[in-house]
């Protein structure tokens, strides 16, 4: 069984990767699993904010089919 989700990347995480992509993962995949699968190097640039359908989630959040998953490094402004 698998799920298809929309993954959106922002700021430095786009470098060498993509802006937005439909992707398929095994059912039960967590946020951090997907991040590592995509190949985001978060040891250098720490993860800032994760959202699913516009709501903040933690790294162990279990994704579901049809989710929009957005991944940001630490960003700020004002």
């Amino acid at each position, binding site marked *: 069984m698998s799920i298809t989700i929309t993954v*959106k990347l*922002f*700021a*430095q995480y*786009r470098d060498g990767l993509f*802006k937005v992509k439909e992707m398929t993962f095994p059912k039960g995949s967590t946020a951090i699993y997907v991040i590592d699968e995509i190949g985001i190097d978060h040891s250098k*640039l*720490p993860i*800032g*904010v994760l*959202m699913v359908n*516009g*709501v*903040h989630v933690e790294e162990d959040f279990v994704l579901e089919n049809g989710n929009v998953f*957005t991944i*940001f*490094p*630490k*960003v*700020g*402004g*004002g």
Partner: protein
Amino acid sequence: MADKIYRVDMSNLSFKIEDVPDEWMGLGGRGLTSTIIAAEVDPECHPLGPNNKMVFAPGLLSGTSAANSGRNSLGLKSPLTGGIKESNVGGTIAGVMAKLGVKALIIEGIPKDDSTFYHIHVSQNKVEIVACPELVGKNNYAVLDAMEEKYNKKVAVMTIGLPGEQKMLISNISVRDPKGKLRSHGRGGTGAVMGSKKIKCITVDAAKFNESGASIVDPEKFKAASKIFTKALQDNPISGEGLPAFGTNVLVNIINEAGGLPSHNFRSGFSENAEEICGETMAENIKERGGNTTHGCHQGCVIQCSQTYNDKEGNYLTSGFEYEMIWAFGANFGIKDLDQIAKIDALMDDLGVDAIETGVTIGLAVDAGLIEFGDGKRAFEILEKDVAGGTPLGRIIGSGAGNLGKLYGLVRVPVVKNQSIPAYEPRAIKGQGITYVTTPMGADHTAGYAVATNILNSGGHVDPLSKEGQVELSRNLQIASAAVDSTGMCIFVAFPALDEPECLPALIDMINARFGISLGVDDVMNLGKNILKTEHEFNLKAGLTSADDRVPEFMKYEALPPHNAIWDFTNEEIDEFWNF
């Protein structure tokens, strides 16, 4: 040499240099400006009349080698909100004033002969006040050119453009930055107050000041603390990496994804335009076109969130191209072309009008039927011809969103205390909403930046869509911000201060070393509390009440997409803010 108070009386064009009273000794920046306004200005005075005053004060650490310490505060009674205002700015002014030993510059009165405008020049132990008919009718860059020619390239300049001369409520006081570009003492119609005093520009002489900087009691201790502080700024991922790479405009996407980016005059929290106007696109353009992603708005900034932005041909368009500006004209008013927003930004710098107040007013003008959604060409024209020229249409736009809404019978008018709500939707970012309604400044995002914890996961996380914990969050941030605004530090030191444990103690150690005192974290927080209470009390005496600490009513019954969020705080919950 001890710092002094420089006092200018415009009613007889005279000046005095005074000793600093004991009770003002430990204050700087916002702490000092708000204290002086509360002590010397009748809260019931007309903000554009003879009894309002302007107080300029560098921060406690301005003029020293401390990183990011070059911010200057301006205090006055605001003609937009009817309450107290503190507005702070980068540029060269704070450093120059501090090195000259000017603890505060207080300007009072209105000239008897109001047929012309005046130029105030401050130098060591002297203030010259001279009529400057040759500058009347000029906008900011022409004034900068004239002052650089008259003095030198280092002279600090504060000036108003045509909208300020005409006492428009969207007008700012513009301040020269180290590269000869402009920053603003923004929000609340500061330019109108300077215009009412018939002051076209203020210059502060940088030729003969103490080159080694402001005096420091314990230089060794200062150096050690300064090193730790600078390192915290550089090591923090936001101030060290994110802000220099993308500027503040990196926020467009994250606020949009969270459903909190006000769009179509606050009808939605999500904009379809985000990708076209976001920080990532801006950084790409800058790279391709040979601009610069890093630029400091004052000397000694190690974060450098500002930038220079060129057009497709590589010609300079603007600098200091901020998130709030791009949000207002991009998402809220609907311009899809970043270059067009940049042109408007440059024009607005030259005119000296506030990005947020002007942008929100133009967005609301769509509802008033005065302009089409996204018509940047027409927006440019209205600003250049009508606002600068003072036509009736220009005066309507120049009066700000609250007044435009009243004139056209509009209900969806995004203001608190008559001041436009900035780029974060209160319904979807509720902690920020609490800041908008409770801060004595009117809707002001910098007063207590709850976005940090609601959205950016700085200082932990508080769910932006729930009421839980927001009042406490906003209160803590407002207290800390009031204190930070007194140091001369740029607001972005808040990010390392929230997340790097060594940052705040190092900042306090620098203050202690400079003045030979021994403040602790509690003392600094008490300073912040006192400032807020002083400001709140001024507003109450000015006639504002808790009924002014509210969002516009439509936010209580119009659900905001995509989260269908409404403003659901009770009055009691909001008023709880002041229990400290």
